[in-house]
C-alpha cells in the first residue's frame, strides 16, 4: 500500500519473500559489525603501543637518575682550615675553607699527583657538593673538628656518567669528558671499594643546581604545588559560581549568549596569550612579584576557568529536571533547590572538570615562561610570593642543559610530573565514585 514507486512497477511479479531478503543481507551486516569491532581494537592497540613506547623511552632514559655515584673519603677536619680563629663561632665555622679540606683529602689519597693542572683534574672527581656536606656536618657537630671521619660524598656528574656506562672509554681522549688520568684514578677508587651507587635522595629533596649531581626536583615540585593551590582556590569557586549563575539564574538573552560564546572562545585561546596578559596586567600593572607562584596561579586560573565553567555547566544540565521540580514543589526557594539538591548531584561532574583543568594547568609551560617562572631558582620556595619554578618548566630547563647527566634527570623529572598527573586523575576517579548517586 505505502510501498515506494518501484514496488508498483513490480506489481505484476510475485513479491519476493522478505525472510529470504533478510537472510541474504545478514552475512553482510555481521561482517560490517565485525569489521567495526576490529577497527576499535586496532585503534586501542595503537594507543597502547604508543603509550608503552612513551613510558619505555622515558623510564629507560630516566631510571638511572634515581641513583647517584658516591665516593668514600677519609676526611681530616683540619682546624687550621675550618676554624683558623679557634673560637668555634658559628659564623666563622660556616665561612671555613671546606673546599680546601676536600682537596687536601684527595691529595692525601693520590700523593703521586703533582702539578696544578693534574691536581685540578683530580679535584674534579668529587662534586662541589662535598664542601657543603662537610660544612653541614661541622655546623651540626663542631666537635668533629680535629677528627678524621670516613664519609661518602657525591661524585662529580662525569664520574657518575662513567659509572652508569654513559661515557665511552674507547673514544679518543680529546672527545671524552674524562681524561685518561681520571679514568685511572676512578679505576683505582673502584678497586679500593671507594665508589658506590646509592639511592639519589638529593634528586627528591634539593632545588635546581648548575651541577647535575646536586640538582633536585623538590624546588619545582613545591613551586608547582603552590601554583596549583592558588589556581584551585581561585578557579574552583569562581568557575562553579559562574556556572551556577549562568545555568540557573541568568536570563537567556543576547548578553548571556555573548558571554557563553566568549567563555567557549577563551577555552581555545593559546595559553601563551594568557602569559602575556599576566605579564601586562598582574606584573606590570598591579606590580605583583615576578617569577612568583601567585602570579603563575592567577594566569593558570584564567586558563583553567573556561574548562571548569564548561564542565560545571554540563554537570548542572545533566541533573534530571525532576529533582529540581521535586525541590521546588515542596516549596524550596531556587537557592535551596540548587544548594541542597542540584549542586550535590552535579558535584562529581564539576570535580572531574576541575581536576582535568588542574591537570592541564600542572603541565602548562608557555604562559609561565612569560611571567618569569623560567628563572634559575636554587632555593625551595617558602610561599606563594617567593620566586619559584614549576615541574614542566624545570623539565624544559634541564632539557636545555648540555651536561649528559641532565638527560637522565630530565626523564626522571618527566616521571615525577607523570606521577603527579596520574595521582590527580586517580583522585578524580575516586571523588567521582564517592559522590556518584543514583536517581
Amino acid at each position, binding site marked *: 500500500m505505502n510501498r515506494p514507486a518501484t514496488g508498483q512497477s513490480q506489481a505484476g511479479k510475485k513479491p519476493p519473500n522478505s525472510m529470504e531478503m533478510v537472510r541474504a543481507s545478514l552475512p553482510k551486516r555481521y561482517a560490517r559489525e565485525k569489521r567495526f569491532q576490529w577497527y576499535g581494537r586496532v585503534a586501542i592497540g595503537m594507543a597502547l603501543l604508543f603509550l608503552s613506547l612513551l613510558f619505555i623511552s622515558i623510564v629507560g632514559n630516566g631510571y638511572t637518575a634515581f641513583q647517584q655515584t658516591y665516593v668514600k673519603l677519609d676526611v681530616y677536619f683540619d682546624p687550621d682550615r675550618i676554624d683558623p680563629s679557634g673560637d668555634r663561632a658559628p659564623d666563622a665555622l660556616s665561612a671555613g675553607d671546606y673546599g680546601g679540606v676536600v682537596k687536601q683529602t684527595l691529595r692525601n689519597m693520590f700523593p703521586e699527583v703533582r702539578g696544578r693542572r693534574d691536581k685540578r683534574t683530580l679535584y674534579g672527581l668529587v662534586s662541589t657538593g662535598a664542601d657543603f656536606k662537610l660544612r653541614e656536618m661541622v655546623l651540626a657537630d663542631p666537635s668533629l673538628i680535629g677528627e678524621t671521619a670516613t664519609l661518602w660524598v657525591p661524585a662529580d656528574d662525569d664520574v657518575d656518567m662513567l659509572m652508569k656506562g654513559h661515557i665511552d672509554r674507547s673514544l679518543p681522549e680529546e672527545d671524552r669528558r674524562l681524561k685518561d688520568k681520571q679514568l685511572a684514578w676512578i679505576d683505582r677508587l673502584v678497586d679500593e671499594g671507594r665508589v658506590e651507587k646509592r639511592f639519589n635522595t638529593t634528586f627528591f629533596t634539593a632545588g635546581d643546581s648548575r651541577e647535575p649531581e646536586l640538582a633536585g626536583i623538590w624546588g619545582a615540585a613545591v613551586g608547582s604545588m603552590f601554583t596549583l593551590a592558588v589556581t584551585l582556590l581561585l578557579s574552583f569557586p569562581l568557575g562553579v559560581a559562574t556556572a551556577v549563575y549562568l545555568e540557573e539564574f541568568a536570563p537567556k538573552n543576547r548578553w548571556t549568549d555573548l558571554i557563553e560564546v566568549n567563555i567557549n572562545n577563551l577555552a581555545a585561546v593559546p595559553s601563551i596569550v594568557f602569559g602575556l596578559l599576566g605579564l601586562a596586567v598582574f606584573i606590570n600593572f598591579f606590580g605583583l612579584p615576578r617569577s612568583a607562584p601567585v602570579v603563575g596561579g592567577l594566569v593558570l586560573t584564567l586558563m583553567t576557568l573556561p574548562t571548569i565553567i564548561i564542565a560545571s555547566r554540563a554537570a548542572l544540565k545533566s541533573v534530571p529536571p525532576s529533582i529540581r521540580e*521535586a525541590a521546588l514543589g515542596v516549596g524550596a526557594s531556587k537557592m535551596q533547590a540548587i544548594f541542597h*539538591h542540584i549542586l550535590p548531584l552535579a558535584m562529581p561532574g564539576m570535580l572531574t572538570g576541575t581536576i582535568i583543568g588542574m591537570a592541564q594547568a600542572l603541565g602548562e609551560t608557555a604562559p609561565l615562561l612569560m611571567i618569569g617562572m623560567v628563572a634559575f631558582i636554587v632555593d625551595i620556595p617558602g610561599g606563594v610570593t617567593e620566586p619559584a619554578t614549576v615541574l614542566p618548566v624545570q623539565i624544559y630547563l634541564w632539557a636545555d642543559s648540555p651536561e649528559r647527566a641532565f638527560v637522565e634527570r630530565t626523564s626522571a623529572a618527566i616521571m615525577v610530573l607523570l606521577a603527579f598527573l596520574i595521582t590527580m586523575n586517580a583522585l578524580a576517579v575516586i571523588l567521582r565514585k564517592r559522590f556518584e548517586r543514583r536517581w
Partner: protein
Amino acid sequence: MTSLTESADKTVDKSFDDTTVTEAIEVEHTATVARENRETVGEQFVDTARMTCRDVDVYYSDKHAIKNVTLDIGHNEVIAMIGPSGCGKSTFLRCLNRMNDTIDGCRVSGTIEIDGQDIYHKSMDVVPLRAQVGMVFQKPNPFPKSIYENIAYGPRIHGLAQNKAELDEIVERSLERAGLWDEVKDRMEQPGTGLSGGQQQRLCIARTIAVSPEVILMDEPCSALDPIATAKVEELIDELREHYTIAIVTHSMQQAARVSQRTAYFHLGDLIEVGETNQIFTNPRHQLTEDYITGRFG
C-alpha cells in the same frame, strides 16, 4: 448563572457525605452543544471555592496553550482534569502553584486566586505558595537521599519542626497518611530511590503532605505505576480528600470516574466542559466531551 452555582454547590455538598454520587444527575438535557462551540459548558463555579481561576491564558512563547479558562476548585473536593494529550491540562495544573515559572518563555494572564489572594500578584512569594499548594509529579521523583530525609526536607526548610522529636513525628504522620509507614518504618535510612515505583510515588505524596499544604496538585500520578500500585494511590487520594483539596490530571477516564467528584474536560487549550463527574461520564453536554469519553478520539 444562579442555577449553575446552585447545582455545583449541591454537587459539592453531596460529595461530602457520599462518595458514590450516582443518583445526583439533576440537569437533564437532550441537545448537546456542537463541536465548533468552544465556550465552557457546565458548572464552572462553586460556592466554597478554595482556588478560583478567571480568564486564565497561558502562552509558551508564541503558542497559546491555555485559552481563557475559568474554573473554581472547591474545598475538600477532588477535581479531575481529563483530555487528549497536549490539551493543556498539565499546563493548567502547573499554573496553580506557579511551577510554570521555571519554564522559559511561559506567560500567564488572567487571575488565579487562592483563598482570595492573587497568586500571580507581584507581592506573592512563590515559596509559601508552593508550601500551600503542593505537587505530585508524573514520574516518581524522590530525592536521592534516605526515606527519612525525603520527608523531612520540606518541614526542615520551612521550619515546621522545633526539634528532632517533632520532625520525627511529622515524618511518621506523613508516611502513615500516605499508607507507606508500615512498609518503610524499618528502613528509614535507606535511599528513597530504592523503593518500588508505587512506593516511590506514595513517598512523593508523603513528602508533599509533610509540609501541610491545603491543595495538592497531581500530574498523572499513576501513569508510571502498575494497576496494584495505582489502586493504592487512588485509595490514598480518596482518604486525603478529608483534609486536602486535590486537583488531579489523568489520562485514564476510569481513574477520573473513580476518584473525583468533579471533572473538567480540556480540548486543545479550551476548557470544554466542567461538571459533576457522574454527569460528565454518563450525560455529557458537549459533543467534544462525548466524543472523547466514548473513545471516538483521544
